[in-house]
């Protein structure tokens, strides 16, 4: 479904550049050995921005929870209401969460706990690729 194109900014440029190459990266503080997402200017644990790097993820995760959006704020998505909006936890670090529309999963038939795999979708305005997630069927 259509999405707004995210505009890369200094703090998250690495994420979006990697997405355009089909890779999922998450910010890592190598001093703390700790991932964080969304990206920030400094590590939330040690407060330093000097040790942040981009760390590549496997692209596997599970559905932590979801809601079905009937009243979303983005006009670009009005025509697609209602739609699933799930919270994905990454297998590499279940503390790290991302959102997904779960393409291919019917509205409100979201299996909490199910494994998901990474796909990328192109957004229309700028062509920026964004990560999405599909339920892994047996």
């Amino acid at each position, binding site marked *: 479904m259509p999405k707004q194109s995210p505009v890369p900014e200094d703090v998250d440029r690495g994420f979006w550049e990697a997405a355009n190459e089909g890779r999922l990266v998450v910010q890592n503080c190598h001093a703390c050995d700790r991932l964080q997402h969304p990206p920030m200017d400094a590590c939330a644990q040690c407060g330093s921005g000097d040790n942040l790097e981009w760390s590549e993820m496997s692209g596997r995760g599970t559905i932590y929870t979801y809601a079905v959006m009937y009243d979303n704020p983005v006009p670009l998505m009005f025509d697609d209401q209602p739609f699933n*909006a799930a919270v994905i936890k990454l297998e590499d670090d279940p503390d790290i969460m991302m959102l997904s529309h779960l393409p291919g999963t019917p509205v409100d038939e979201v299996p909490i706990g199910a494994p998901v795999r990474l796909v990328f979708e192109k957004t229309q305005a700028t062509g920026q690729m964004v990560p999405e997630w599909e339920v892994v069927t047996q």
Partner: protein
Amino acid sequence: MTTNRFEQIPEEWLRRREGLGIWEGRSKAVAVGTGASDTSRRWDWDPQTSVGANAISALRRAMDDAGVTGDQVDGLIVVPDTTTGRFAWPPAWPEDRDVPGDMAAAFEMVDDPRVGMAGLSTEWIIKNMPELTNVEFAAHIPSDTAPALIGAVEAVVRGLTKVCLVVKGWHNLAGRYYVGQGAANGDTIATREKWSTGWGTVGVYQEATRFQRYLWKYGKRKEMFANFVVNSKRNGLNFPEGFFAQNRPEDIVTREDYLGARWLAKPANLYDADIPICAAAAFLFTTPERAKDMKQKPVYVLGHTSTQPPARSLQHTLEEEEAAAASSGRKLLEAAGISVSDYSFENMYDGYGMFHAIHVEGLGYAGIKQGDFLDFVENEDITNEGPHPISPSGGNIGSGRTRFWLHMDTMQQLQGRAGARQMTGVKPEIGVDGANFPQNFHGLVWGANPD
């Protein structure tokens, strides 16, 4: 007058950690009076219904309620923020009138043109309330009523003020919150909102996902929540200061209404959310000694706590929310030096309604443990006539988005003057309240007696 413009409450005033023991200020500050302005759905652009006018109205009613005159007040705490929305300033003024001009004719305005219409300040209040001649301590405490009440209580305990007013207002201008506003507009998105709004999620979404997880984790059904909402709506209609009692007294909400309501972010529907309104409330705090010659019975503040853990990632998880609520529950008991069975009632925040469950389970009120709330509200008597009132104020769901009905009701219940809401199944001796989300929480324990 020197105004202490706190950006936050001084950190040493807050009780964030566990293990601090009984609060040293216990029962050294009391609430005596409270007052609310009239309410409305949206501002009609009349200066006399502006957030500034409402704040003045609430302050005067709180003073009258306590039997205090303006010259006796020496402390004033104002919450400068009066919206949760994302409206641009200036707003789209009505074409046929000059609202800023009308305001300037009706009130003494200050440099910031929003103040009085879409914000408040101590300066604006004092300029427009000439009866406040002796304010020596004046402070801004941001965001919400609960932290402002804690600020007032600590200010009294610390001897900075003997008679302290607190005021919080809400303005609601024309337009819809969030929808098509700011980051949501256009075909590109920048700022941190790209991670949330970018997927079409905002407002109730995060709480809806936590509630979905809750239903899954504990094997419960959404329908089990209906009785809580019905009861809150009923309590709201018995709250004469509230929006629905004043403006839509026929608006009784039944179980069927709840179950058939329009979805916002399923499993959250219209009745799980609150409606934005225009309203203001004020509270008067003093010392127990000074309260003796005031008009109302004093309500003792037995303890307070604050809990604001950051989210580990994109949004707080259910587990983070539950842990925060449980920590608050323990800290409130510890501060007040009581046990959970001492609570006669709870008035925890409810806007969104769903996390009221998490708050109550965190307290352990009425023996409710994690995962128990829905069974409790479905099967037990949770009315104000029963042995374990749940949200006797009716909260935001019952009376509109203010985050202060809970405090007002706690006071009135303990003073025995809650009218049609007055609880009868239990003698109100100790109550607990606080706002807002469990993970962004300031709470207080209140007693009808100092012990």
